[in-house]
């Protein structure tokens, strides 16, 4: 009798503790959730208020309401649509090329034997440990004036040491399409991938290329999409590299353009806020649509080390 009351009292205690705990955890989640959405919410509110009201309350609701800032972006100020277009073309190009090149190289590292394979792969691993900032200046010189200004003279010819691509979209795209991490990721993926299907295709007389195009790429589309989305996000939001390469406002990407616009027209901050939504919203929509790929890719980066 007494034992059972003690037990029920115990159970009551744990139930109460569980309830308090749940409330506490909900409180943490709700607090951080509100904080997470706040900057975006305020941006939306003030992008719908007149330019003169950039710092004027109310802060919770767009009164007085206006669409002027969006009109400025899409009609009056002709550079904005260009920046959006530049951002789209550059990010899409980087994503497609990087996914293709990394898939090809990753497949070769996982499946094909060729001389110096291990040496090249070790080089890749070493370069993955290097912080990006160390190659920044040489990469700039290669894209621009060249490592050796004027090139290397060789008889009548001079061999250029730079691509002369400063202030062009190609200069922004080129270094982004081949890196160590993408290939590492694809190599790991193809190594863990069953060979049987490919071997069957090869038996049927498909060469390496045919097998790669018809079997390997379609089968790895989830992984390719994951890498592609990750690349797109990086390219879409990239700042430092385009900042160094691009000089003419016509060629700016949206992040560079927004930063430049803020400097030139600092009294039009509501326009900056409206413009910033054109950078955030597309990424947000892509994130919502492909959420599980994003989560997969981020989760996989963590467990890889373990």
């Amino acid at each position, binding site marked *: 009798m007494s034992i059972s009351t003690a037990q029920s009292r115990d159970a009551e205690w744990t139930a109460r503790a569980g309830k308090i705990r749940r409330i506490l955890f909900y409180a943490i989640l709700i607090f951080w959730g509100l904080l997470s959405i706040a900057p975006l919410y*305020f941006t939306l509110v003030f992008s719908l208020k007149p330019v003169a009201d950039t710092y004027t309350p109310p802060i919770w609701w767009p009164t007085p309401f206006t669409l002027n800032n969006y009109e400025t972006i899409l009609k009056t100020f002709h550079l904005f649509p260009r920046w959006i277009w530049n951002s789209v073309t550059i990010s899409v190009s980087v994503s497609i090329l990087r996914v293709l090149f990394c898939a090809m190289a990753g497949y070769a590292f996982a499946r094909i034997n*060729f001389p110096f394979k291990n040496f090249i792969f070790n080089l890749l691993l070493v370069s993955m440990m290097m*912080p990006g900032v160390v190659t920044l200046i040489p990469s700039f010189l290669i894209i621009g004036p060249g490592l050796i200004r004027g090139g290397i003279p060789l008889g009548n010819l001079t061999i250029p040491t730079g691509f002369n691509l400063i202030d062009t979209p190609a200069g922004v795209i080129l270094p982004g399409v081949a890196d160590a991490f993408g290939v590492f990721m694809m190599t790991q993926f193809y190594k863990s991938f069953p060979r049987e299907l490919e071997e069957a295709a090869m038996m049927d007389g498909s060469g390496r290329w045919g097998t790669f195009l018809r079997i390997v790429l379609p089968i790895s589309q989830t992984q390719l999409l994951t890498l592609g989305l990750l690349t797109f996000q990086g390219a879409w939001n990239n700042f430092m590299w385009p900042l160094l390469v691009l000089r003419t406002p016509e060629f700016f990407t949206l992040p560079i353009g927004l930063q430049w616009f803020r400097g030139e027209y600092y009294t039009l901050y509501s326009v900056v806020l409206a413009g910033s939504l054109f950078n955030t919203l597309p990424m947000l929509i892509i994130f919502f649509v492909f959420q599980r790929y994003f989560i997969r890719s981020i989760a996989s980066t963590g467990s890889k080390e373990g």
Partner: protein
Amino acid sequence: MSIILNRKKISEAVTGYLFISPWLIIFTIFSVVSLVYAFYLSFTSYNLLKPPQLWGLEGYQRVFDDDLFLVKALPNTFKYVIIVVPIQTLLSLILAFAMDQKLRLQRFFRTLFYLPSVTSSVVISLIFIWIFAPQGIFNQITGLTINWLDNPRTAFYVIMGMNIFTTSGTLMLIFLAGLQDVSTSIYEAAQIDGANPIQTFVYITIPMLRPVIFFVVTVGIIGCFQVFDQIYVMTAGGPLDSTTTVTYLIYKWAFRDTTIKMGQASALAVILTFIILSITLIQRSIIEGSGSSAES
């Protein structure tokens, strides 16, 4: 027979190189040649007008003689890493732990928490400049009148807070994936033994997550040592150089100053690389060391 085999081998090698060549060419130029050239450049004086002149360790000497580096950029960068990395790691771990409690709306919260990470560094910086302006929303809500980004005592902390805020979502997702790998039977066993949630967190969750924690801290350290975008947009290193970091200083010397110092900037980039590499190696040996002693 052996000729056929050889021919097969050669054709295989050719195919292999065709597969990797687009990647290999660009990778060699922008990662391998660039890396080697960065070291070479660090031993030269180079202002873009004349070809690089070798001058030995003079560039390194000048880095360490430079007050902006020694008094501002280096201490600022360490301060930034020491404050941001532990807070963002712990915060995202707590958020992931709260998310892992099988509460309702888990997916909803997960999406919400990731929002700041979707926003680009420039855009979130532009928004924070406006929120922390003298008449901005932050002062309006709190009733304060501080000019946050113009004050050398507050500007750096606003940037730190903002970056903790934006990275926590991503890091939370990494931890959450790690937590979901920890088998529930361990938690059940702990519960039967009468462990409370805090004990469970300290004695089970954290040790089980050691590899993930290592990863998050490493990524955090590497990222924080190279913080640039937010500094460039929000303060350009000011006020009074209070937010000048090493990476910003590299940019300033190589691209912004009236006399371009690419050699000296490269020397600083090499120094930063060594700092980052040695700290990640030390950190790895500490974590692996504590791991083996706990298991024995």
